[in-house]
Structure formats: C-alpha cells, structure tokens
C-alpha cells in the first residue's frame, strides 16, 4: 500500500529527522554534510520502502543510511579535502556508543545552536531548523521576518559554527548560568511553534510540543538546581494539558474562557501545578515560573467565571518588572480588562509597538468589540487575519469579525 509508506516516511521525517541530523553532526562535525546526508537518506527511503516495506526501526534506518551516504561522500572528496575529510571519517568510526543525558545529541546540538557567539535571531533559527526540523518559511513566520532573511541567517550561522570552531558539547557547570536562558527561550519557541503552527491547516503539530517537553524534561534532569528549567517544564505541561480542549470537533479554535474544562488533561495539569508549587517553595522566581504560575491559576478555576483575575494580575505585575516586553504587557491587558474594564486595557494596548503580531490586533479587536466600537473592531480583526497564515486562526478571527 504505497499510501501507508508515504505516511510512514512523513511520520519518520517528523519524528526522527532532527535526531538524525544531530547524530550525524556528532559523527562528522559538519552541519551541512549532516543535513544533506539525512535528506539523501529520506530520498532513498521514498524509493525503497514502497518496494521492500518500512524497516522495523525507521529512525535508526535513516541514521545508518545517512551515515553511509556521508561516508561515501567524504571518501569521494577525501582526495580533494585531504586531512579534514580523513579526520571526519575517523570520528564517524569511533564516537557512537555514548548514552545518557550528557550525551544526548540533540541537547549537545541545542547548546551549539544557542551559543552566545551567535546572533540571537540566528540561535532561534538554527534550533528550529536543526532540532525541530522546521522549514525556512515556518521559521520566518515564527520570527515575523521575510524568508530570505532567515535563509541568510542560517547560512551565516552555520558558517560561523564551522569557521570559528563553536564547540559541539553541553557546557560545563560554571558556564551553564550564562548559556541556559537562551536554550530555554528556544525550547519555549519550539513548543509554541508546535502548539500553534504558524502556517497551513495543521493547527497542532503535536510532535513539536512533544519534542519541546522532552527537551525541557531532559534539561530539568540535567540541571535540577535551575528553577527556571522547572518553570519552563511546568509552563509547557500546563499549556499542553489544555490542548484537546483548544479545538472544536470541526478543528476550529476555542478560547480559554469557552473551553470544556472536562477535556483538559488533568494528569498533566496536576504535574504542572506540582512543579509550580515546588518553584514557589524555592522562591527564586523567573519569567517561566511566573508564566507557569499564571497558567496554574487558570487551571485551578472550575469555570471561567471563577478565575482569580486578581491573582493573575498580581503575577503579571511581577512578571512585567523582570521581563518588561511588549508581549507580556499585551497579555497583562487581558487581566486588566477583566478587573478594570476594556477601556483601561485598550489605553495600554494602544501604546504597544507590536504591529506585526496578529495577537496584538486580535486583542485590540476584542477590547473594541466590548466597548461597542464595531467598525474599529472589524478593522482590527482584518489586521489580525492579514498577519497570520494559520487557517484555523484565520477562520476563527473571521467568525469573530462576522458575528459583530
């Protein structure tokens, strides 16, 4: 059944391409070679699997095939590149049996991708490309920048890793406090990309969320003394717990206030809430712990009407003092609107410089609707629709606009 094989290849790509690229980079120390070899392996899979069937361990098959492809290429080119190619071949033959968190290939790679010697935008782009296996277009949408810009960032960053000798390893204990925050930011972004895929019909790309949670768990295991790692994990679990309730039977979006709370995953919710309580006991708050605490307060409310908005606003006030970003200010306005009314919230929203961000316009639209300014609300919904490529979100926003 050729359809089943195509689906198996597709699934293997989503589940295993990031891990395969990371493993190949460890073997060969060359990102481009690793990416190309993995791509070639998937081409071979597309040719062979329909004829001979899907192998029992598709991910392992991809790594082995990609490794052979890369070795073939290095042998062909070794006369041209001499010692360098020989050294890579030698590495490919030796380092392959390490296990355990310190030797997780993707964890190593994520610290390389998030190295402070790379520009912040490049760190995000690299991680989404190499760890999460996203295409350049998807990354561009996550960044709100043109695709060509992302492509150029990736090329430059990969060149710098190679030419400047950015190492491929998990940093030593002493280096961790400096290196960790950006890794956390990137894991969070990977989760968000999965939770609300920025383009196409596929609203939820669960494998990205799973991948981000897996990485967050791994980081927590590796760095148990870092409260922000636990805060991030808690935030991801509490968000993931609401996933089923976030879409209706027809795939349409359901707002938090309208969600069927019985459809929340209460086991995940409890695990996240436990982590939040453990963070509170440590009393070393940070942005992820506070966001997780806000999410936990929502989770505590049996109905939307019973939400403790006072506590949520207090947490946002704390968050905005340590992370004074426009997006935090925007989210805080939702609590302001609940407690002090839409007019006060709109006054704050209108000060924010977030024109490229669709949620800025949809938040404005909602506040304008509540103020009875329907023409303005309609224009704001249009602005929001124009700024997202996600069809579920577009249709949700169109529905809100048309029901004005």
């Amino acid at each position, binding site marked *: 059944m050729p359809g089943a094989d195509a689906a198996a290849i597709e699934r293997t790509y989503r589940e295993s391409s990031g891990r395969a690229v990371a493993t190949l980079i460890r073997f060969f120390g060359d990102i481009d070679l690793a990416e190309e070899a993995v791509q070639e392996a998937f081409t071979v899979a597309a040719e062979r699997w329909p004829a001979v069937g899907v192998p029992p361990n598709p991910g392992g098959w991809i790594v082995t095939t990609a490794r052979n492809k890369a070795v073939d290429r290095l042998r062909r080119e070794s006369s041209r590149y001499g010692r360098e190619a020989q050294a890579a071949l030698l590495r490919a033959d030796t380092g392959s049996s390490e296990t355990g968190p310190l030797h997780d290939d993707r964890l190593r790679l994520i610290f390389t991708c998030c*190295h402070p*010697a790379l520009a912040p935008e490049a760190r995000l782009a690299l991680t989404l490309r190499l760890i999460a296996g996203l295409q350049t277009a998807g990354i561009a949408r996550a960044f709100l920048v043109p695709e060509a810009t992302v492509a150029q960032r990736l090329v430059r960053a990969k060149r710098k890793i190679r*030419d*400047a*000798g*950015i*190492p491929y390893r998990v*940093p030593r204990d002493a*280096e961790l406090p400096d290196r960790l925050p950006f890794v956390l930011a990137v894991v969070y972004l990977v989760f968000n990309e999965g939770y609300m895929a920025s383009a196409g019909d596929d609203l939820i790309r669960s494998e990205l969320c799973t991948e981000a949670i897996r990485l967050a768990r791994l980081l927590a295991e590796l760095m148990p003394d870092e409260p922000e790692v636990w805060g991030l994990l808690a935030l991801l679990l509490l968000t993931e717990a609401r996933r089923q309730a976030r879409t209706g039977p027809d795939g349409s979006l359901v707002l938090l206030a309208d969600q069927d709370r019985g459809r929340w995953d209460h086991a995940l919710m409890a695990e996240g809430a436990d982590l939040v309580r453990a963070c509170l006991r440590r009393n070393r708050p940070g942005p992820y712990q506070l966001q997780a605490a806000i999410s936990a307060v929502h989770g505590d409310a049996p109905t939307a009407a019973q939400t403790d908005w006072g506590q949520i606003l207090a947490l946002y006030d704390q968050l905005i003092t340590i992370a004074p970003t426009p997006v935090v200010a925007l989210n805080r306005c939702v609590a302001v609107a609940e407690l002090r009314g839409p007019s006060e919230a709109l006054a704050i929203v209108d000060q924010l410089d977030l024109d490229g961000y669709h949620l800025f316009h949809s938040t404005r639209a909602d506040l304008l609707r509540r103020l009875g300014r329907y023409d303005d609300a309609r224009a704001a919904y249009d602005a929001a629709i124009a700024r997202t490529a996600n069809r579920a979100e577009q249709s949700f926003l169109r529905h809100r606009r048309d029901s004005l």
Partner: protein
Amino acid sequence: MRQYLLAVHMVEGEPTPTEEQTQQAYKAVDAFNAEVRSAGAWGFAGGLHPATTATVVRSQGGQVITTDGPFAETKEQLGGFWVIKAPDLDAALAWAAKGSEACAAPVEVRPFQDPAEED
C-alpha cells in the same frame, strides 16, 4: 588546534590613561602573556603605535598609491593583538576575556583560516 586572532580595540580620542593606569595595564598584560605561554597557547603578540602613524598602500597594475592614515576612518582602531592556539571558540573566548581584563579594552576574536602548526 585552531588559531585565533585576539584584536585589542582602542577608541581614539578617549581620555589618555594616567601613568599609573598604564603601568598597571603593562603589568597585567605581562602576567596574561606568561599565562598564555605556560598553557602552550602562545602564538605571537604585539602592541601597535597609534593609528595616526599608519600608512595605506594600494597597488594595482604596477601603479602604487600611498596615503597617510589608517585604512578605515573610524574611531575604533587596532591597538594590539595576540595570536593564540585554542581547541575551540569557547577556549579562545575564555582567553579573550582575560586579555580584555588585562589591557582594559574590548577584544575581538577572529578565527584563522588555517589550523595552528603542531609543535
């Protein structure tokens, strides 16, 4: 082993350091140099006279044009440099941090195209 250039950036027009500060920097740089040598990371190093002493030569098709002054008309100019050997960028950045502390100026780290020759 890789090779890295650690380039010390001096800002022209900054207040001249006092005699005491200069002596302090010399001492700190000497100590840093000794540490780099004993770690086996030493390649080459040197301090430069100010950019006002620079001359730029352009030669094309046998025609030589000589002009006074540095190549780039910027406030930031190369004040001195180290060439060090390091296994990777992290090691080079760690040396750069110590070098920057010693000479009290920012240090730019640039990788060489060729690896270091083995001793």
